[in-house]
């Protein structure tokens, strides 16, 4: 079953800006799907159309088999949205904000109260329930938006840059929460600038650029397209002038830091063997850049040169 089927979706704004140029995108039920793209690529427009916040110019959207044009309410009731910007009334109480959202989705007050308590507790906001939303910290406000999106227990949760501007601790906590939601069977669509986030959470990734999907595949296939990775090796002692790694492009960034480019066909073991034969010990090793980030940049640059 497809949670979301987007076909030939196009959007041209009144000022003439073409945001989407007929994109196709399918998200299977239960999937953790990442929608990546640079600023202005069309991510938020896509999400806006799916959630009825933006009017489409053409194309179709179906959510769990329900057509958005034929039955917008039928689509809306299946979706929970965590938008990028704080869009709740800052002067309302925390509990009131979540309860109202439950009410808008048709949960009677008693049930709404119970669901609100459940998700505010889950987000660690129950103690703050009587305070005004404006008194919350940035991280708490973001958790409030997640609680609000989940209160009606949607089948599809869309998170638009949910960890933008939050500290590492909260980002990690949000990741585990998103993972937990997905483990319970909820389909998750995530847009993010943090490619590390997409790499660790998403099973399927689409890359959108200038209103076009330039890649849409599962994460493993996507990462397999990466031809070369650069590793940074921290050496125990300064490297000798005679350092030789034939067949591997390499450079010393300082006396004890060595960067080595390893293509897909070559083995990293070979690098270690050659260093060892020259009595060079490696203390630690890391990727120079996030793998997905490299691929992302490559794909976006390729799309740029095509257009």
């Amino acid at each position, binding site marked *: 079953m497809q949670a979301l089927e987007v076909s030939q979706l196009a959007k041209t*704004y*009144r000022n003439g800006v073409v945001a989407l140029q007929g994109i196709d995108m399918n998200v299977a039920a239960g999937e953790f799907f990442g929608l990546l793209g640079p600023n202005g690529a069309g991510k938020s427009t896509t999400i*806006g159309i799916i*959630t*009825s*916040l*933006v*009017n489409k110019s053409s194309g179709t959207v179906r959510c769990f088999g329900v057509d958005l044009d034929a039955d*917008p*309410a*039928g689509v*809306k*009731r299946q*979706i929970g*949205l965590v*938008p990028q*910007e704080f*869009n*709740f*009334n*800052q002067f309302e109480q925390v509990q*009131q904000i979540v309860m*109202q*959202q439950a*009410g*808008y*989705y*048709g*949960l*009677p*007050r008693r049930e709404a109260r119970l669901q609100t308590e459940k998700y505010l507790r889950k987000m660690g906001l129950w103690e703050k329930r009587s305070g005004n939303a404006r008194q919350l910290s940035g991280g708490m406000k973001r958790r409030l938006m997640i609680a*609000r999106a989940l209160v009606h227990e949607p089948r599809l949760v869309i998170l638009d840059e949910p960890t933008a501007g939050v500290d590492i601790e909260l980002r990690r906590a949000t990741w585990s929460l998103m993972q937990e939601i997905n483990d319970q069977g909820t389909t998750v669509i995530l847009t993010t600038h943090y490619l590390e986030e997409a790499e660790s959470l998403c099973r399927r990734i689409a890359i959108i650029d200038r209103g076009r999907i330039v890649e849409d595949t599962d994460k493993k296939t996507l990462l397999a397209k990466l031809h070369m990775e650069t590793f940074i090796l921290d050496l125990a002692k300064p490297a000798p002038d005679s350092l030789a790694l034939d067949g591997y492009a390499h450079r010393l960034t300082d006396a004890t830091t060595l960067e080595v480019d390893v293509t897909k066909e070559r083995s990293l073991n070979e690098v270690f063997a050659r260093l060892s034969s020259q009595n060079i010990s490696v203390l630690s090793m890391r990727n120079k850049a996030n793998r997905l980030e490299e691929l992302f940049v490559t794909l976006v640059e390729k799309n740029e040169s095509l257009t």
Partner: protein
Amino acid sequence: MNVALEEQSRLKTNLVGLQTIVIKEVVRLLRIWPQTIVPPVITTTLYFIIFGKVIGSRVGEMGGVPYMEFIVPGLVMMSVINNAYTNVVSSFFSSKFQKNVEEMLVAPMHNSVILLGYMTGGVVRALTIGTTVLLVSAFFVEEMVIYSVWITVAVAVLTATLFSIGGFINALLARKFDDVSIIPTFVLTPLTYLGGVFYSIKLLPPFWEGVSRANPIVYMVNAFRYGILQGHLKPEYIDINIYTAFAVIALFIVFLFSLALWMLNRGIGLRQ
């Protein structure tokens, strides 16, 4: 889910959604009572003192009743009109401005539920203020007898409904806070003051009386005055036919409601 259950579920969603918006609006109205309830009551009380007591005592009678009694229905109606309009325009525009209107737009409620919810909020505020002003007026008139409670209440509710929808349309079209006050300042206030609040339009020269009849507020003020003072007013001071007044108000409600709903469905002022 079969079709009947599905329909029942959708109806329930809409009813609960409506209840939620109405509660939210009433809570807002009460939460900011120093802004919503107190100022209109003070303003109208000043009208009673200045126009009723100070100037009214020199005017004497109008239409067979003391001038103070003559202006009470007009002042109540003025409060109803202003507060119905202001409540909806400021509340809905604030939601738009803070983007929390998106909470409603992503939810599976019918657009008419959003419109009805805000209209109800406007009507509640208008009737609260209208009733308070009417109670305050009791301190300034010798005798206050309402001729027909049904006509009085019906006119107040319909007028509040009409101007709530007007406020909603204004909020949809407004792009900045200045746009929220343009219609009340440049359209509503002149029309209200020239709508027979302080005088009978029969006192005007024929030309201006004819012009005044194009002002819809004349029908509301006079219908409300009819509800309160009929039986005391001289027949020649009854400016309009009560059935015509109800027809005019109903016509405006149907037209503006349809317009507002059409705008909501098209996403005008809300969706790009």
